[in-house]
Each structure stands twice: as structure tokens, then as C-alpha cells.
């Protein structure tokens, strides 16, 4: 446990300016992605008419009111304001409020039967920020917990996905024909969504060679299974690189983009703060350095 804690939340050293900049970048990215989802869904929700599959809170509350008028826009506005309140530390419960409103927006948007996982990690990161702001007084600890908890749930999510595959299908999951079947499904989706579709070179190769299809699935499930290696500092960059590679593979073979996962993996997977520290030390009197010094001293 102690080893895991040190790998996720760091040691007793005081926070460097590079680390602070890195944490702030993480916070900004999470807010930006949340706002993008909120407003994209706000535009879509009024097109819906019936709740076919109640998810989350929709199991207990009828969320069809969100389809009427401007409720989805109102919810997005409220959540955006809460996010800004959280970022500027106006209220420590702001991120939690934003998360609950984000949840409402999600269950309204995905009430039609599709269970989308594209936003889950952004949601988990926002949850980590919300809990960090409520539980910790010290700003530096808030930041370390938010990033550490997000890293933990990232690793857990991938390993859990691999286990689901092994339970749902078994070792036979990697059979190449399974990938062919999913590729045909996605080809139908692309055709119906955009009106045209053609396979790319890699897809044609996979459709012609069963061993390539099997190898692609084997790489995918192995990478996912070892997702827990993302928890440890030493193996994190390797795990991140493999997971990003896997997402690029999914994009190229099945045309499914998990872009927000990739951006978060890119940020959390590598020790960018070391680079930031080096760059910041080049101009110690810069405005950015002064601003970061001031930020390090503030707390609730």
C-alpha cells in the first residue's frame, strides 16, 4: 500500500514550480473536456423524445424533462459556472456540483440505449478533483491527490476492461474473425452516419489476413490487462505508450476515437514536470515563474 501511495501521490518533497504547472495543466484539460461534452450534449439532448435506457440517476428520477426547451443548455451553463468556481477556488464544493450536473447531462444524452465510455475518464478526473478539494486543505495535496486518483482509476479501468473480455468470452476473444465482425459493424455505422465508407489499407490487410486480426486483438487485450502498470512511476511511461498505441490501433481498425483518453494518457503518462522545471529555470524572473510562486503560497 505504501509503495502504491508513493507512486500515486509522491513523496514528502515540496512541490516544484514544474509540478504545479503540470497539475494546473491537468486541471485545465479536465475542465476544457468537461465543458466540451456539456455543450455538445446540450445541443443534442433536445432532439430526443423518450428514455429507452435509464442510466445512473435516471433509474430513480425521470430525466425526460431535459429533452424539453432549454433545460440542457441551462444545466450546461450551471455546470460551466461551477467549474469556473472550482478553478478559481471560490467554493470547495464547486467541482462536486459540476460533477453531479455533468452526470445529469450524461444520463439525459445517453438515454437512448447506447452506453458511451468516451467521457468516463474525464468524469473520473473531475470526481478526483472534487474529492481532493473537499478532503484536503492544502492546495499541493489537493493537486497530488487529484492526479494520483485519476492515474489509479485509469489503470483500474483498463485492467477491468481486459478482465471483462476474459470473463465475457474467454481466451478465444482474440480470434481474428471477431475483429472482422466488429469492423463490419463499424463500417455499417460509418456508412449510415456519413453516407459513405471505404476501408483503409490496414483494414484491408486485416480482412485479408486472419493472423493480423488475431495479433491485433492479442496486442489490445494484453495492453489492457497490464493497464495497472500505469500506477507505478517506473512503468507508467511504458504503459502510457502502449495504451496510446492501442487507442491509435482502435482508431485505425474500427474507426473509434477515444481522443480524450489519449490526451489524458499523454499528459499523465510522462514526467512532463521535469521538462517544465528545466524550462522554468531558464528564466527565473519570468511572469510565469512569479505567478507559480504566488500560486504555491495560496490555500483555502
Amino acid at each position, binding site marked *: *500500500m*505504501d509503495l*502504491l*501511495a*508513493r507512486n*500515486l*501521490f509522491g513523496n*514528502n518533497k515540496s512541490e516544484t514550480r514544474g509540478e504545479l504547472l503540470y497539475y494546473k495543466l491537468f486541471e485545465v484539460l479536465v475542465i476544457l473536456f468537461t465543458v466540451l461534452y456539456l455543450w455538445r450534449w446540450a445541443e*443534442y439532448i433536445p*432532439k*430526443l*423524445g*423518450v428514455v*429507452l*435506457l435509464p*442510466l*445512473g440517476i435516471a*433509474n430513480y428520477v425521470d430525466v425526460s424533462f431535459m429533452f424539453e426547451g432549454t433545460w440542457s443548455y441551462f444545466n450546461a451553463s450551471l455546470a460551466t459556472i461551477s467549474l469556473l468556481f472550482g478553478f478559481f477556488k471560490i467554493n470547495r464544493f464547486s467541482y462536486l456540483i459540476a460533477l453531479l450536473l455533468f*452526470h445529469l447531462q450524461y444520463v439525459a444524452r445517453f438515454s*437512448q*440505449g*447506447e*452506453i*458511451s*465510455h468516451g*467521457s*468516463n475518464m*474525464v468524469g*473520473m478526473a473531475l*470526481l478526483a478533483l472534487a*474529492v481532493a478539494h473537499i*478532503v484536503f486543505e492544502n492546495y499541493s*495535496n489537493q493537486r*497530488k*491527490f487529484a492526479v494520483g*486518483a485519476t492515474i*489509479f482509476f485509469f489503470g483500474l*479501468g*483498463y485492467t477491468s*476492461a481486459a478482465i*471483462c*473480455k476474459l470473463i*465475457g*468470452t474467454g481466451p*478465444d*476473444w482474440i*480470434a481474428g*474473425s*471477431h475483429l*472482422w*465482425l466488429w469492423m*463490419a*459493424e463499424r463500417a*455499417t*455505422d460509418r*456508412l*449510415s*452516419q*456519413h*453516407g459513405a465508407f471505404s476501408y483503409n489499407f490496414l483494414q484491408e490487410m486485416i480482412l485479408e489476413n486472419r493472423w493480423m486480426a488475431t495479433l491485433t486483438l492479442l496486442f489490445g487485450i494484453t495492453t489492457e490487462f497490464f493497464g495497472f502498470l500505469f500506477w507505478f512511476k517506473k512503468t507508467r511511461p511504458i504503459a502510457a505508450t502502449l495504451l496510446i498505441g492501442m487507442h491509435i490501433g482502435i482508431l485505425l481498425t474500427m474507426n473509434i476515437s477515444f481522443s480524450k483518453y489519449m490526451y489524458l494518457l499523454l499528459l499523465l503518462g510522462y514526467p512532463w514536470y521535469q521538462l517544465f522545471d528545466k524550462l522554468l529555470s531558464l528564466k527565473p524572473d519570468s511572469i510565469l515563474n512569479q505567478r507559480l510562486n504566488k500560486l504555491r503560497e495560496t490555500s483555502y
Partner: protein
Amino acid sequence: MNYQENKKSIRILLILLLIHGGLVATHLGEFWPFSIFPMFSQAGNPWTRALARDVSAETSTEWDQKPIAQLPGATFAFDEVGINTNDVANYLQKAGQWDEQKIQGIRTLFGSEVNRRNIMLYRVQGKLTHNDSVSVLAQPFLYMTSDTTILNPDIKRSK
């Protein structure tokens, strides 16, 4: 973080993990943002998707199943009405018995486009055949015009 703060962080993480476990265990693996990430866990299972065609120029309505390349009419992209193909496909997969409310739900998704064009919505089904190749066939599902909505007579409809 010092030793005590690290311990506190792990304790909070365990509480979050318990909440995560409790919510996904009682909500079929999904309580956003918590999830067990079961996507693509059932490999080799047949699938159902949606496809629409503009059949305004067609003189008769056919209800028999065909490969996509042989479907009558012109291309109709869901992008044209700003709806996501997953939502239409999920209607076709998960709606169970069809009633007026669900049929109207689909018409609502297509918006005013059904007043301008005659649209045939297809239920596309894919499966692995016994020789391990993929078969994809489209079944006409719902015919929509400005004043008519006809459900495929073979589809179960509740009164």
C-alpha cells in the same frame, strides 16, 4: 505528501473504490463515471445497427431482407439531420415491443426531414457464418413519409 497524508489518500481511494464497486454491482456495471468497461467483452455475438435510405423516387415499398449494396433508393446520411447512428440503432435493438410512442420517438429523431423526403429505415444485422466469414443483411423496418409511418408487418407491435 508525507506518510500520514499518503495513508489518508489511500483510505479515501479505498472509500471511492467501495462506492465504485457498490454502484457498478447494483447497476449492471454502469453508473457514470464508474464503469467496469465491458465494451467489446462479448466477442463474436451478432449485432444490429441502423441504416436509412431516401426512397422518395421508389414506386413500391419492399419489405424483404437484402445485402446493403442491393438496397433501393439513394444514400441518406444521419449527419444530414444531426443525429447519431448509435441512437437510432439502439432504438432498433432495445425497444422491444413497438408502440406509437416509440415510433414517434424515431420520427422525432429525424425531425422535419421526414416531411421533405420518404425515408426507409433499415435494421442491419451482422453475424459470423459457420465458415467464419461475416454476413451483413438489411431488413426494412420503418417507412416514413410526411403523413405516413409504416412499421414492417413482421415486427412485433403492441396495441
